[in-house]
């Protein structure tokens, strides 16, 4: 019998019933909830269902909350009613909700790993496409729609088709200035935003194993921008070290048993993947997007590509539309482009290591006069730890604004937006049309690159600062 992939091992554990045609009824071992999805808990009540496993369900506020400094419950209007309803429903069902100001509150994809809720070997879902983030812990994790959320609440299970398996292997030396964000953006640039459609992607290779857990979460976070619902990385000693002592991680004898089990969660040497992709780390330098899809990405040192050079007419049209929207010209240098905004945060890059990387660039420097720059920690704990390290002072002294935890300007549904025509360098995950506010123009980059842009007042190569 051929070996199994990491994906197969975890999938198999969660099969309640084989439904034929590669479909299975899957047990859900972790369900995370947030304030931005469908009607979730209210819909359950209306339909007359009960929440089957409140013990396996965890909730927080992130999407619609303002991140303005000094926020209180009273400043959350106009969405206060939504939050209060969710708080009441969670209490009614006995679901743990990490409330505002409480350790644990934060972006749902920061909260899960941070609290030790997202564990290796789990099958974790959430009504948000960036749920793939948790795959960085060695889990199968994917985003689901509102009706699937109701299915999970009512039955703690989900009907899914088994995807094909892809492995993306990163080998070679990581150059200075290159972060996990650059690694995954580079891969998206190589195989496109539909390159992973239909696959669960395992990221592997020495360059991935060398990453710390937070960097692995960043890589897996952008799996959906490859078209893959699922991205994952085998758990290892770094994962175990990261989890030990976290509030919801196992303890004592349970911890030892868990770690012994987790060590078996790696693809076997003879495991077969449907597709293998190799990435040469030597080719990767800091990446920045120029267009309106994450696949519109180039090295910061490159010139903006010419649609005429793209063979496919549909691609030409989409590239030209992107250039027009972004107000850019083919052939120009991207790193000379003047900017108005910088956003450092999100479920992609809102963790402590991201904040530290940005602070290292900001320290002793000043944000350009025409730029407004925000740092939005991914969670209450990230905020408190960063403040304990004095990083808030570093940012404030440099002219950045230091805000409360939440999704903020990653999706601009909470009052945090840029104005039409303004240009932002953002550490988030989507440079879609209007993503940071109607008419707003977004360039995706790493935290260090975003901080460098804030200081230069234009897109800049962090290696030259």
């Amino acid at each position: 019998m051929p070996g199994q992939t990491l994906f197969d091992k975890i999938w198999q554990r969660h099969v309640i019933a084989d439904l034929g045609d590669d479909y299975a009824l899957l047990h859900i071992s972790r369900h995370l909830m947030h304030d931005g999805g469908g009607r979730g808990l209210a819909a359950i009540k209306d339909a007359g269902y009960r929440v089957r496993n409140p013990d396996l369900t965890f909730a927080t506020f992130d999407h619609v909350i303002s991140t303005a400094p000094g926020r209180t419950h009273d400043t959350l209007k106009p969405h206060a009613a939504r939050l209060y309803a969710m708080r009441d429903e969670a209490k009614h069902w006995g679901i743990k909700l990490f409330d505002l100001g409480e350790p644990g509150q934060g972006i749902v994809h920061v909260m899960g790993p941070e609290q030790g809720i997202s564990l290796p070997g789990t099958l974790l879902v959430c009504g948000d496409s960036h749920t793939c983030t948790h795959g960085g812990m060695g889990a199968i994790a994917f985003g689901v729609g509102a009706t699937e959320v109701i299915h999970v609440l009512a039955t703690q299970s989900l009907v899914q088709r088994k995807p094909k398996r892809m492995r993306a292997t990163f080998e070679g030396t990581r150059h200075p200035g290159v972060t996990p964000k650059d690694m995954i953006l580079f891969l998206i640039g190589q195989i496109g935003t539909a390159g992973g459609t239909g696959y669960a992607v395992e990221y592997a290779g020495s360059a991935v194993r060398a990453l710390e857990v937070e960097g692995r979460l960043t890589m897996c976070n952008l799996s959906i921008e490859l078209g893959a619902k699922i991205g994952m990385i085998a758990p290892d000693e770094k994962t175990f070290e990261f989890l030990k002592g976290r509030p919801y991680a196992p303890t004592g004898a349970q911890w030892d048993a868990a770690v012994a089990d987790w060590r078996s969660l790696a693809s076997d040497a003879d495991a077969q993947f449907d597709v293998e992709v190799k990435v040469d780390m030597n080719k990767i330098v800091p990446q920045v997007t120029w267009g309106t899809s994450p696949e519109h990405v180039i090295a910061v040192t490159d010139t903006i590509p010419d649609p005429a050079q793209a063979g496919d007419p549909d691609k030409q049209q989409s590239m030209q539309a992107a250039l027009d929207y972004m107000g850019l010209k083919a052939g120009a240098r991207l790193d000379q482009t003047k900017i108005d905004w910088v956003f450092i945060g999100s479920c992609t890059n809102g963790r402590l290591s991201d904040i530290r990387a940005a602070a290292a660039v900001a320290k002793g420097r000043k944000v350009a006069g025409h730029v407004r720059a925000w740092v939005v920690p991914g969670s209450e704990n990230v905020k408190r730890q960063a403040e304990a390290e004095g990083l808030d002072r570093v940012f404030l002294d440099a002219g950045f604004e230091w805000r409360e935890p939440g999704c903020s300007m990653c999706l601009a549904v909470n009052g945090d937006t840029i104005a039409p025509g303004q240009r932002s360098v953002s550490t988030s995950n989507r440079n879609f049309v209007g993503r940071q506010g109607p008419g707003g123009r977004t360039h995706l980059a790493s935290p260090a690159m975003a901080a460098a842009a804030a200081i230069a007042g234009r897109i800049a190569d962090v290696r030259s600062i």
Partner: protein
Amino acid sequence: MDAFTVLDALAAPLMRQNVNTDIIIPIHRLRDVAQADLGPYAFEPWRYLPDGSENPEFFLHKPAFRGAQIVVAGDNFACGSSREGAVWAMMGMGVRCVIAPSFGPIFFNNCFQNGVLPIQLSRADVEAIAGELETAARPGSNHEPRLAVDLHNRTVTTPSGRRIEFQVDGIRRDSLLKGLNEVALTLLREAEIAAHQAKARQATPWLYPAT
């Protein structure tokens, strides 16, 4: 959920790649507008001019395609956010079927949860269908830009009468044909779910926090 069996309807081509769900329904509409009322906001960023009037260039505002119930789209249609409101908004404007070479994976599942049929065909077939629809929409054409989708027989018939077979997973097809509610079906399997969970609690007790 409404059943889906056969649909003979106007079809409109939207041959752009990577149309994302942010375009199909802007997030603030999803936040502020009830599910049943999302239709007027479907494709809002493309559908209206800055003064709020209809954009005549919008694909579903062209006279021949107005009222289309089938959308023929480019690669990676409805990628991005998991928002099910993308399906609800398209349903709100009457759409019941989308044909594309590939789909955003979460949107693909969300369609089946709402009685909307997503059909995946080869890029060549999708382009040929879109081409036929454009031709049929021209003044003087002998055909209407319609497609006949038959889920029983898994076929799409084009304006010229060409019949193209498509694949659809058996379990999804069955649910659509009968208009089944998946939650209700799964609740019938409670004994299996309970048995599985009891075994999992034994094998991996650390996944089950003490309550």
